[in-house]
C-alpha cells in the first residue's frame, strides 16, 4: 500500500483518455448504425416535435371520420420487446407495435390521458417551456387519478412520437449535483463548477438550455452517494486530480444520465463510477452503462456505454483489508438481484464484471463506500482512488 504523501501520477487514466481521443477520431468517420429490428428514436427540436404531433392528430381525426373509432399505434414497451444491441452496447426497443383503441374499456382511459398529455406537450413546445412530471399530473388530477398513470402516459407519448422524453419538454425533477473542473452556460448565466463550494451545481433537468463551455478535466467520476461526494468535495479532489464529480443520490435519473452522456460525448473524457460494493451498486452502474429497461427506447440518449466501474469491487474488500466489522452479510434480496444481474447478456459479455459478481455471490458479503473510513477518513481520497486510477484497476 502506498503512503499518503506519495504523489500519484494517474498513468492509467491518462492512457485511457488518450485511447478515447484516438477512437473518437476514428468513430467520427463512421456513423453509428442501430440494428434493423429496433425502432428508431430521434432527438427532435421543437418544430419537428410539433410537426409530429400534428401528423398524429390528423391521423386520429381521419380515423374518427372513417368509423368514429380512433386508435393509437405505439411501440410496445414490454420486456419482450427490449433488445440488447451488442455492437453499441445499448438496450433498445424492438419493432413490436401495439394498438390502443378508444372504444375498448381497457384503454379508453389511457387514450384520453394520452391525449391530455399530448395537449400539454403541445402547449409546452409552443411556449418553449419545460414542465416536470408532477406538473403534468396536477394539470388534470381527476383524469390521471394517480401520478403513476400520468408518468406512464408521459413515457407513452414520447415513444408514440418516436422521440426522446427530453424532446417533449417534460423533465424529471432535479436530484443530482455536479462539481469539478467544468464551466457551463445556463441560458445567460455562466457557471464555474469549481467555485461552488462543497454543494456543487444542481443538475438542471432542462438540459437543452445548458451549454458546455470548457473543461480541463481528465476524467469524470460518478458517485453513488452524496456522503462520498461530500468527502471528495471537502478534500477538493478535483484540485489534485483534474476531474468532474457527479452524483444522482441513488439510481441515475434522466437528467443526470443525460447530462453525463453529454459531458462524456462532448468532452470525450473517461467516465468512472464509484458505487457501494453491493448488488444495488452494481445495478446503478448498469443503469449508467446501458439505461433502464423502462426507458429503453431512450437508451441511445441516456446511456454512457464507456463508463467503467472503478469501485468498490468485491475483490477490493480483501485487497484493501476492509475489516470484518464493516462487512455486511447479503440478504435474500441481494442474492436475487445478483443472480438477475448475472443472467443479463451485457454482464455475461464482460468477463471481469461477471467474475466480480460471482465472487460477491460466493462470499455473500457487501460493503459501502464508507467502509474505507475504517482506515481513516482520508483513505478514500488519498489512497484508494488515486491507486485505482493509476493502476487501471477497473472493470
Amino acid at each position, binding site marked *: 500500500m502506498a503512503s499518503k504523501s506519495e504523489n500519484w501520477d494517474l498513468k492509467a487514466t491518462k492512457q485511457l483518455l488518450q485511447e478515447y481521443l484516438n477512437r473518437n477520431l476514428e468513430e467520427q468517420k463512421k456513423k453509428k448504425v442501430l440494428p434493423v429490428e429496433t425502432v428508431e428514436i430521434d432527438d427532435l427540436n421543437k418544430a419537428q416535435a*410539433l410537426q409530429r*404531433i*400534428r401528423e398524429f*392528430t*390528423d391521423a*386520429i*381525426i381521419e380515423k*374518427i*371520420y*372513417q*368509423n*368514429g*373509432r*380512433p386508435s393509437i399505434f405505439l411501440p410496445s414497451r414490454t420486456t419482450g420487446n427490449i433488445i440488447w444491441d451488442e455492437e453499441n452496447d445499448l438496450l433498445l426497443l424492438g419493432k413490436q407495435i401495439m394498438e390502443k383503441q*378508444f*372504444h*375498448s*374499456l381497457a384503454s*379508453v*382511459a389511457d*387514450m*384520453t390521458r394520452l*391525449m*391530455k398529455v*399530448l*395537449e400539454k406537450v*403541445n*402547449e409546452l413546445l*409552443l411556449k418553449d417551456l419545460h414542465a416536470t412530471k408532477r406538473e403534468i399530473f396536477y394539470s388534470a388530477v381527476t*383524469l390521471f387519478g394517480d401520478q403513476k398513470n400520468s408518468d406512464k402516459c408521459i413515457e407513452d407519448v414520447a415513444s408514440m412520437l418516436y422521440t426522446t422524453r427530453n424532446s417533449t419538454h417534460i423533465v424529471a425533477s432535479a436530484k443530482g449535483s455536479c462539481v469539478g473542473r467544468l464551466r457551463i452556460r445556463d441560458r445567460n448565466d455562466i457557471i464555474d463548477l469549481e467555485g461552488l463550494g462543497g454543494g456543487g451545481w444542481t443538475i438542471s433537468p432542462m438540459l437543452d438550455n445548458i451549454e458546455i463551455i470548457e473543461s480541463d478535466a481528465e476524467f469524470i467520476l460518478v458517485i453513488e452517494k452524496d456522503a462520498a461526494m461530500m468527502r471528495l468535495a471537502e478534500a477538493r479532489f478535483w484540485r489534485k486530480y483534474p476531474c468532474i464529480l457527479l452524483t444522482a443520490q441513488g439510481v441515475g435519473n434522466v437528467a443526470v444520465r443525460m447530462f453525463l452522456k453529454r459531458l462524456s460525448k462532448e468532452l470525450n473524457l473517461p467516465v468512472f463510477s464509484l458505487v457501494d460494493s453491493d448488488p444495488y451498486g452494481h445495478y446503478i452502474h448498469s443503469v449508467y452503462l446501458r439505461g433502464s429497461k423502462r426507458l429503453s427506447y431512450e437508451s441511445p440518449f441516456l446511456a454512457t456505454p464507456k463508463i467503467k466501474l472503478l469501485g468498490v469491487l468485491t475483490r477490493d474488500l480483501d485487497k484493501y483489508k476492509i475489516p470484518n466489522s464493516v462487512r455486511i452479510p447479503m440478504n435474500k434480496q441481494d442474492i436475487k438481484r445478483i443472480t438477475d444481474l448475472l443472467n443479463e447478456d451485457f454482464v455475461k459479455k464482460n468477463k471481469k464484471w461477471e467474475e466480480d459478481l460471482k465472487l460477491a455471490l460466493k462470499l455473500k458479503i457487501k460493503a459501502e463506500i464508507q467502509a474505507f473510513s475504517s482506515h481513516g477518513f482520508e483513505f478514500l481520497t488519498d489512497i484508494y482512488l488515486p491507486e485505482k486510477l493509476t493502476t487501471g484497476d477497473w472493470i
Partner: protein
Amino acid sequence: MRKRTQLVGFEFGYWKHSQYITEFLDNSLDAIETFHWKEIEKTDSRNKFSLDQETALENLSLIQDFLEEEKHDSVDKEESSIEKEEEAGEIIDKEELEVEEEVRRILDDLDELLKPVVDLVDIEPIVVVRLRESEPASFLTSELSQKNVMNYTIEIFDNGIGMSKGDLRKFGKYLASSKSVELKQTRGSQGFGAPSAFSDAQNTTGKPIIVASKTSNMVYANASEFFTTSKNEKRYLIHPVDVDSPFGHGTYIKLNYLNVKYVRGYVDTYIRETALMNPHITILFIDPYGENITYPRLVSSFPKQPKYAKPHPSSTNIGDLQDLIAKSENLTVSAFLQENFVRVSPKTAKEIINIAEKDLQNKSNLLILEEGFITKSKKKEDPIYFLKNEKRVYGRSEKPRDKMIIYSLDSDDLKNDYWNLISELIKWDKNLVSIDKTIIKLNRRKETIDTKKEQKNITKEVDKLLKEIEVINKQKEDIKHKLYNFVKRNVSGLIEQKKFPSRTDYEDLIREVQISKAKPVELSNEQFNSLFHAFKSIKYMGPPTDTAIPVGDTVLENTLVKEIGLKISENIEDFDEPVPNLVSVKETLLKEKKKLEILSSEDAPLDSSVNNSDIEISVSRILASYDILGNNGDPSEFNSTFNKVFKKIDEESRSSYRDVLNYFTDVHSKDDDFVSAETRPPTSGKGLAYVVEAALAYCNDPKKLDTPKRSRDVLSRFVNRTPKLRDSAECAITKAVQSVNWKNYKLDTFDNNLPKGPLKLLVNVSGPYVHLMFKSQSKNSLADDEELIKEIKYCLEAIGRRLRSYLNKKDTFRKSEKRSSVIERYIPAFVESLFNIVKTTESEYKDKSSPEELENLMKEAIGKKTVPKLTPEPINETQIIPEEKESKELPKKLEIEWEKEVEKPVDEKSRIEDQKPEKETFSEKTLLKWTIKELIEYSKEFGISISPNSKKIDIIKKIQSHYKTEALIEKPTVEVEEELVKLVSKRPESIDTYITSKEGKPVKKPSPKPKPKGKIPQTVQTTLPVITTDKIIATLNNEWQNITHLIFRLKIKDMMDARYLQNRLKELVRRDKVEMQIIKNKKHWKLK
C-alpha cells in the same frame, strides 16, 4: 282418542294449519289423477277433463268481487250456523226435519264454495280449498290457556274420482286406505292422515266431520256427518243420505279445528309449492282473510300414470315379509316369492330356498341327502339315524304308500366311516365360522381406515374369503353326497327302528328342514327366520325403473316461468303446439323451392327439402335488412317480405348471416332470466326405484323474485310432487344441495352452503317406494343415502353448468353496457384535448370539423361494432323483376294473394312519397349511421360523384339530391325495391320464434294469445243427447218429481245424460219455466 292424535302429531302451532291442508290436498290431487287416468283408459269417456281448453280462470276474478261482497254475509251466517251446530252437537237423536235442515246447510256451503268454479267443475281438474276463522266457544279455549286461539273451518273440494258408498263408509277409519293395496307412486298411502286429522278436529272442537262425495256413476251425491270413535268406527249424526250435488264427481270435506291464529307463510306456501309441482291441476285457495289465490292449470296433459310396483327384495324388511306371508294363498314358498316380489325368478327363488334349507340343516342337525335324511351327531356316543321315505304298506290301505322309515347305524365300522365324513363336515363348519369372524373383523377395520388404498385391499381380502366360503360350501355338498353314497352302499348295515319312541320329533324335524315343501302360511318361526336371511343374502337385479314418473324438465321449466313471471325469450305459451309462424316459414320456403324447381326443371332438379340452415339464412336475411332500432312491425307482412328475400339466398354469405342471427339472439336474450330443469334417468338404489329432478330459476327482476334472506326460502323440496316444508336441515335433499360447490357455478352461498341469489331451486324425488326413504313418520325429510345424494348432486351440477354459462353471458353483456357508458364519459375530454392541439396547428381539420361533430361520430360508434354489417346495398331490381314476372305466370292463386298483401302498403307508401321527395331506399337517418367509407362506396355504385375528402353530411346530402333526380327517371323500378324495403324494415314477429328454436329449446311466441274472455268452455258432447228440453217439459207435470223419477221416465241409461238432465233442469228453473223445491234434501221439479 288423545293417543291417536299424537300418533300423527297434530299440535297447536302454525304448522297445524298446513298439516290439515297437506292431508287433504294430497288426497284430492291423488283422487283427481286417479279419475283422469281411469277416464282416459275408456275409449269413449265423456266425463274426462277437457284439458285442451285454455283455463277460463280469468273469469274467476269477476266472481272474486262477488265473493268479497258475500264475505260479510258469510260471517253472519257462520255465527248462526255455529250456534246451530252446537245445538246439533247436543241433540243426537234429531228429528227428521232437523236432519233435513242440516243437510241443506251442508249443500249451501258447498254451493257457495263452488260458485266461482261452477261452470268448470266438470271439465277442469280443480281443487278448491277454503279456510275460515271464527271465535271459538269460550269453554273450548279456557283449558288451553292460550290466547289467540281461533276456530277454523276448512273446506276442501276436488272433482276427482269420488267415493262410492262403500268407500265412503270406510272413509275416516284408520288403515282403510284404498291406496295401500299395491304400491305405486302416490302421495300418501297408509291411511293415517285423514283419520288423524278427523280425530284432532273433533277432539279440539267437538264438532262432527262433514263429507259429501259422488262418483261419476252415481245420480246423487252421498253426504254424511259423523264422529270417529276410539274403536275405529264411525258414529253418524247424519247417516249417509242422497243429496243433489252441483258437481258430477268429486269429494267435499268440511271440518272444524282449533288452532293458533292463521298467519301467512305456511299454508299458502304449501299450496304454492304444490301448484308448482302439479301444474296439471287448478288449485283455488281462499284464505281466512278472504283472499282468493288461484293457481290455474298450466299444462294441457297429465303426467303418465305410474305403474304398480311390486316390492323389491332389497327394500323389504322382515315385517313386510311377515305380512305378505301371512296373507299369501300360495302353495309353495317359491311361488310366493315369485309372485310377490319383483326380480325374483324361479332360479333365484330356488337359490333362496336352498340357502334357507342349508341354514336350517345346520340348526337342526339334520342333513338332507339326495334321498332321505341323516342326523348330524356332535358326540361319538350319540346314536346315528338315517331317515328315508319308503313305499310301504301300512295302516288300513293295501297299497304301498310313502312311510318314514328310521334306520340307525350300529356297527362300529359304519360309525367310524360316518364319523370320518362328519368330522370333516364339522371341520369345514368350524372353518366357516372363523372365516365369518374374520370378515366381520375386516369390515370393522374398514370403517376406521381412511385411505382408499387400504380400503381396497380389505375389500379384496373379503372377496377372497367369500370365495373361500363358496369353496367350503361346495365341499360340504360333496361330503353330503359322500354320506349318501356311503349309506346307499351299506344299506345292509342299517337297522330299521320299528318302534322308535321319538318318531314324531323326527318327523317334525324333517318338516322343519324342508322349506321347499312347506306352505308359506304354515312356516314356523325358525323357518321364517332362515328364509328371511336367505332372502336378504342374495344379490338381486335392480328394480325396474318405469314405476317412477317424474314431472318432466320442460314442464318444470315452464311452470317456473309462468309462476314467477320470468322473462325468457324461449318461453312458450303452449307445450304441445308447434308455433304456427315457424310452420308457415317452412311452408313458404317449401313452396318457393318447388316453384324454383319448376322453373329450373330443365336443369338439374333442386333439392326440394327445406332444412334448418335454409330457414336460418332466410331469416337472417330478413334480419339483416331490418332496422334494429325500429319498432315492431305487422307480422302479416312477414310472409311477403320473406318471399322476396328468399330468392336472394346465396351460399357464400351463410356464415355472415349466421352472425346476424347470433347478434339478434344476443340482443333479444340479454335481459333474459334463467330457468333450467334437469330430470335424471330413473335409478334404483337399494331396491328402490326413484327419479330425481331439479329446476332452478334465476330472476333479474327483484320485484318478481328477490334474493331470499333466509336460506330455506331458496330451496323447495318435493317428494312425489308433495312439498316438504319442515325439517329441511336433516333432509338428504338439503344435504345434496349443500354438497354442490356452488361457487363453481358463479353463485354465492349462505353459511350453510345453500346457494344465495335471486334464485328458486326445486328438487323433486319421485318413486313408488319413496316412503321407505323417509327419515321419520312425519314424512318431512328423506334419509341420507349415498346414491340419492349423488343423484341429486349430478342433477344440480348439470343445471349449474348451464347457469354458469348464462351468468357468464350476462356478465359480458353487463360489461359491454358499462363499456358504452364509460367510453361515452371519456369522449368529451378526449375530443377537447384533441381539438386543443388541432387549434394550434395548421391542420386541414382546423376549420373543417368541430368538436361536436367528432363527439357525435364517436358516440355513434359505441356499440356499433356489435351490429353486424350486412347487405346494406339494395337488392338489385333487375334480378327481382323478371323473377316476379315468371312466378306470376306459374302459381296464379298464390300470386293473387301476394298482390293483395303487397299492394296496400305500396299505395300508402307512394302517397307518402309524393310528400317526401327523398324517395330512395335510405332515409337520412339510416345514411347517417353509415361510415364514410360505406357512403362513398354506395355513391360510387350509383354514379354519384363525391370528392374524396368531403364530410359525411355533404355526402349524404349529395346522395339525397341524387335520389330526387333519380326518382323522376326510375320511378317504376324503384317502386318495387321501395316496397320491399318498407316491408323489410318492419319487424317480423316470427323471427323471435325462429331464433330461439335454433337452440333446440321449446319455442315461445311473444305475442299474447287471444284468450277467450267471458266465454266458458262447454263440455264436449260427443253424441247428441237423447233428452231435449221438449222431452223434459213433456215429462214434467204438476206433481213434484225428483231426479230419479225423471231419469226413470226418460229412460236414461247413461250417467252423462243424467248429468245433462240436471243441467237442463237448472236452466229451466232459471228461465222460470219449471218450479223447483227441495223436499227431504232432494230437488223436486214440476211445471209452472
